């Protein structure tokens, strides 16, 4: 450990315990605390439109979902292309309560934190079930197995009348200690809820990686036979990686249901699964902060290309279609460029920036 607790220009660990600290220096801790205070306080100081708050809430939900995907794909090295279906399981858990009890039932409106946790566990249950093929399958074959789950999910939702055949199932307005959360405060209220969830789950992953359960994920990813020889159980690790990922996705789904005050099939399609995967790749697979960068980058790109299409449409009406079609093109191009030139994602830029500032003004 560095002698100076505020600044460290290198790694000076002398025990494993030191290496496992959440914050390496007091400066790191202070900056992080300041950043958190800013995140929680800015909406109280600056008014933002409902549309902007909706966009931000959406990004935060995507962060929760991508953290889950990163666990299974980034940390455990298991490809999942049915992640949106797991998110859907969470959302449809809330929807099922609404269908059976009514969308204004006290459990839906007052006990929503409990419902969000139950949705997470439902996601975990389905994650574990879908993870079972991982005991025998690897790589492309496992990807196809998760794709099958996505297809089955879509089919069930689309055809079962209990799930309103994919049409919107409404979710009632929730209550907080101050009373019913009205339309005016809806997005702000959910901003705080989702942000709190992101912080808690983020710390959860950070701490998980310090435990043997977290390390076994990485060991199984790097070489499952070697991990087996070291006394780990690769099969169980894979199933529990899927379950954990499902939990995160389930929580994200429940938050989505409450934020949009309804659950409709089209938010959980294969296209959404691919989007989550793209966010994880662009952010940086196998890194915690990559789960934050990816959703921000992809959503920002989506909005900016949309705005560009609008501007083009104003000056050249005939060019609007082409400009709007740029959206999926840009989306694909960004993924390809990242895979080619920065496979470690934006998280790697963050790592480079951090290591540069750590040594500044010295070069090495």
């Amino acid at each position, binding site marked *: 450990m560095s002698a100076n607790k505020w600044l460290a220009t290198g790694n000076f660990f002398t025990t494993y315990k030191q290496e496992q600290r959440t914050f390496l220096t007091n400066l790191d801790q202070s900056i992080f605390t300041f950043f958190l205070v800013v995140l929680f306080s800015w909406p109280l100081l600056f008014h933002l439109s409902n549309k902007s708050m909706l966009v931000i809430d959406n990004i935060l939900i995507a962060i929760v979902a991508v953290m889950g995907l990163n666990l299974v794909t980034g940390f455990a090295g298991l490809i999942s292309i049915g992640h949106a279906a797991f998110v859907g399981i969470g959302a449809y858990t809330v929807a099922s309560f609404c269908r059976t009890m009514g969308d204004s039932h006290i459990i839906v409106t007052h006990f929503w934190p409990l419902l969000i946790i139950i949705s997470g566990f439902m996601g975990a249950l389905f994650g574990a079930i879908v993870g079972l093929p991982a005991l025998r399958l690897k790589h492309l074959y496992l990807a196809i197995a998760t794709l099958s789950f996505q297809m089955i999910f879509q089919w069930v939702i689309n055809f079962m009348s209990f799930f309103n055949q*994919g049409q919107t199932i409404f979710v009632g307005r929730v209550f907080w200690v101050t009373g019913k959360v009205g339309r005016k405060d809806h997005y702000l209220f959910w901003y705080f809820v989702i942000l709190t969830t992101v912080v808690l789950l983020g710390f959860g992953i950070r701490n998980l990686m310090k435990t043997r359960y977290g390390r076994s994920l990485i060991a199984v990813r790097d070489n499952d036979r070697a991990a087996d020889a070291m006394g780990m159980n690769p099969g169980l690790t894979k199933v529990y990686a899927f379950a954990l990922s499902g939990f995160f996705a389930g929580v994200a789904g429940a938050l989505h249901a409450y934020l*949009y005050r309804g659950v409709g099939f089209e938010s959980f399609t294969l296209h959404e699964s691919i989007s989550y995967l793209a966010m994880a790749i662009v952010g940086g697979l196998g890194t915690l902060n990559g789960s934050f960068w990816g959703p921000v980058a992809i959503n920002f790109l989506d909005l900016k290309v949309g705005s560009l299409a609008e501007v083009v449409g104003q000056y050249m009406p005939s060019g609007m279609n082409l400009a709007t079609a740029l959206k999926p093109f840009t989306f694909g191009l960004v993924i390809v460029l990242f895979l080619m030139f920065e496979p470690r994602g934006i998280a790697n830029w963050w790592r480079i920036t951090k290591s540069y500032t750590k040594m500044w003004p010295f070069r090495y």
Partner: protein
Amino acid sequence: MKSRTILFLNALLVLSVAFAFTVTANAAGKAYKIGMSLAITGPTSDAGNPYAKGTEDYFKFVNETKVLGDDTIDCTIRDDQYKTAITKRNFEEYIDDGIVMYLNYSTGSTLGLKRDFEEEKIPVLPASYHAGNLDDSNYIFLPVASYSEQLVALSEFVVKNHKGKGKAKVAMFIHPSAFGRGPVEDAKKAVAAGLNMEIVEVVEHGKDLDNSAMLKRLMSKGVQYVLCHTVQSPVATMLKDSSRLGLTASSYGEEGKLTFLGVHYTGGNDLIALAGDACKGFVWSCSFNLTSEKNDGTTKQLALAKKYGRDDKAANSHNYAAGIMVAQVTTEAIKRTKDAGLEITKENLYNTLNKMNGKNAYQPYTTIGPVTYSKTDRAGVDMLQIYSVQDGMFKKVGEPIQSEFMKKIK
């Protein structure tokens, strides 16, 4: 001293210019904000694209020809790619901007945002004619009769014009979504209420490129009429397969063959372009005037398209007419509210729309009948025109009709 005078004169000049601009701004009248969200790209954009053009052109026309005097309509049109999440984002932005009326598109998003419309108390004109839009809703106004009403009316047409003995045997060919499934229940209710036909099978189509097996199965079950409620491309595929297999009736209701009929989004010029000769005899219900049947309305429609440089495909599309129609209704509601000396607000526009009935009914040039709304009637044009493909274009069949059984089952 001299420099002070110059400074004073300059300040006076700046103030005069500012004042002049203020006066000009006031003289320019008010701008009423309207928001529209629809699929310009993505699924169903073949319909959404001309629809958006129709609305855009008509509002431009209104502003340029001073239909509302010095006041103007400021309509923002955004693409939602047929995704409810994007529609919601657009809607929230419009609400932040202070719109007084909202124009929506898809069935999914209209159903999904229904509660937001209720809470915002904002009148909404969607491009979806799904009957479910009206359940537990006060602020959604369907431009024309619901899909359910159209499908039941088309079923009544089948029964009235049935050729052969016994009940008319019908199969439904529907879109695998809320949009497609919604009206089927109402058609079944109409049958239960005494409509003399038998629904043999309800087929939810996939993305099949070949319908031979399905058509053969329908034939083996004795089906004589296929009622379609979906979009054009699957209908075109089916019509081409039927024609190739020699199963299409050469005249309406020919026994031992299949006669195809469809609701609003199944027909139009796009169907003819996709299916070619195979759509000969296809029967279609629609509440809009078609440019293949020239009248004053279609002449104005084509003139509008020409004025704003639209191509023939858009100009002749019934979706272009539908886009114009919602802009017409919006403009008329604003005009009537203004004429009544009321401020243009969401509430006043809502009340004006509810009074659009009886002698106050509104007749836009794009539709085959008047638009009527009241607190109990939220479907605008109740009349339907039956068209049939003859010589490569849709031609009128008889006078406009209205469903009788829909009143019984409501």
